């Protein structure tokens, strides 16, 4: 039997896993410095290095991004390539063990992890494509980075967010006829809520949007373009969306740092949102109007 570490976790029927937002998003790339430059242009700062692997932590405000250039020996893991790929999402949960065992019992795949001595064993499951979903419950007084990372000297460990940027959501590309399958995955395992079709954010309203059970971030599922035909299409986490209380102000601040935004067809920057150009072959970020600052 699973030991119930925290009996309050199941107190909320709409959030059975006790989720509490995104702790970090991880990219895999064999060109970590190139990705780091793009992240710095987006307002992130390098904060710390992993103790045993070629992994860097970037941060702004409450957002953490991990850049992983370590070649994994684990099966079904994203391998670093020149084009960065979102290789994991780490979700905050009131009890990581409870959340992990709950989803395994429902039919999630346990993803093996490789831990060196004195490092944290962060539980993970397989997600879209070769990506993973981690559960993290140490994010208040004590953080996972305190154990696994070494701070970069003289660097402010808590750089403020540029223009109030915060994690807003993730866009996942899915295969043909897979909308119901992935909706089931997130609603059944994580108790995400499906939004009505008329409730959309930003300037890219395609597909289906799910709200996390904690209400603090969104997941957008986008299938292959039906006009192109019956294209199978790879499944992957395609981009990260940042929320901003004032999109034009955020866009102006990012432009001043050298970020270019797409301005073509329906992808025009406006008060609802904006889309950066594609960097390093696959990397783009979306800015979405969102008044919430605390995320």
């Amino acid at each position: 039997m699973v030991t119930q570490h925290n009996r309050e976790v199941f107190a909320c029927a709409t959030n059975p896993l006790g989720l509490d937002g995104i702790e970090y998003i991880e990219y895999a790339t064999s060109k970590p410095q190139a990705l780091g430059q793009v992240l710095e242009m987006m307002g992130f700062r390098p904060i710390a290095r992993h103790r045993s692997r070629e992994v860097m932590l970037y941060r702004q405000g409450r957002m953490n991004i991990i850049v992983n250039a370590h070649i994994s020996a684990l099966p079904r893991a994203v391998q670093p390539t020149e084009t960065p790929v979102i290789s994991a999402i780490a979700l905050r949960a009131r009890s990581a063990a409870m959340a992990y065992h709950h989803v395994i019992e429902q039919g999630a795949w346990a993803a093996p992890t490789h831990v060196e001595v004195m490092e944290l064993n962060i539980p993970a499951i397989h997600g879209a494509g070769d990506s993973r979903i981690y559960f993290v419950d140490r994010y208040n007084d004590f953080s996972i980075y305190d154990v696994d990372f070494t701070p970069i000297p003289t660097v402010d460990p808590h750089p403020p967010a540029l223009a109030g940027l915060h994690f807003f959501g993730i866009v996942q590309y899915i295969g043909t006829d897979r909308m119901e399958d992935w909706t089931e995955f997130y609603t059944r395992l994580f108790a995400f809520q499906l939004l009505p079709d008329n409730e959309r954010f930003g300037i890219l309203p395609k597909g289906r949007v799910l709200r996390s059970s904690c209400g603090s971030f969104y997941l957008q599922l986008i299938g292959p373009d039906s006009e192109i035909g019956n294209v199978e299409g790879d499944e992957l986490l395609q981009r990260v969306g940042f929320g901003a209380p004032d999109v034009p102000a955020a866009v102006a601040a990012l432009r001043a740092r050298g970020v270019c935004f797409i301005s073509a067809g329906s992808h025009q920057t406006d008060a609802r949102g904006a889309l950066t150009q594609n960097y390093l072959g696959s990397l783009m970020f979306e800015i979405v109007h969102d008044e919430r600052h605390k995320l």
Partner: protein
Amino acid sequence: MKQFRSSTDDFGMDTITLTGPLPAKLQAVRGAGFSQIMLLARDIVGHDAGVEAAIRAVRESGLRVTGFQVLRDFEGLSGHLHEYKIDIAKSMLEMCAALGSRVLLVCSSTSAHATDDRDALARDLRKLAMLAVPLGIRIAYEGLSWGRTINEFHDAWDIVCRANAPNLGIGIDSFHIFATQTPLTKLDALNPQKIFLVQLADFMWNEIRSVEERITTARHFRVFPGEGVHSDQVAELVMRLDKLGYRGDYSFEVFNDDYQQMPMERVCARAIRAAEWLGEDVLRRSVPLPNRMRLKSNGPLSAQGKAK
């Protein structure tokens, strides 16, 4: 190119029918004019050059994989038996995905250790379906006619409905329907979008008197559609499914000891005759319309043009 090539596109053979090494089976099935094949796990694992080579052979064969079989005695177990079967299921799912198969066939449990609680059976299949989601696989749940609790397709459908998972559907096998003499009118209650696989076979005698005889017949004496004594029912089955809106694959699930000691080409020739009978004479799928458009079947149920 065979004359009726496009009318037989939705029909495929099963490696279970043939004897010989996997590459030879693939070549014989392709050579006979089929475009798809159902794969038995044993044919993959038992390949002389290993599983990786077997997967490569399938992917290079030019054949589409209809589905992968078979996960047995999965649902209704508890404790360590459940955990054991979850491990087996994961292994099957990973092989299924590696082969490019979108369907895993699961037969209803025969295990005396399994519960008959239908909600528990549904819960286990829902879990299996969830395991299949990241791999892009659909689970076809088939009521084996000697299944302990679930032994007719409408019972399997009940479990599928209880589980209510988008990638969990039903697998239909004509043999089991004829063996249990389940009325074909019950097919009309199915949602055609949730029929993930249809397997067709006939046999040579009218009645099966015992469960033991049913198992023996199923495993040794099946024949291709049009070769047995239930041709009218086979025709009615596919016409009912077609009318219902089923547009998926039909796989010939023919276990036959005689066919296993015949040259593969001879067996495949019998199979293609069955496909031509079903495609041309029963479903009247004429050639060649673009984008797989199909004429609806019409006319009376008839097996007059059946392969013999």
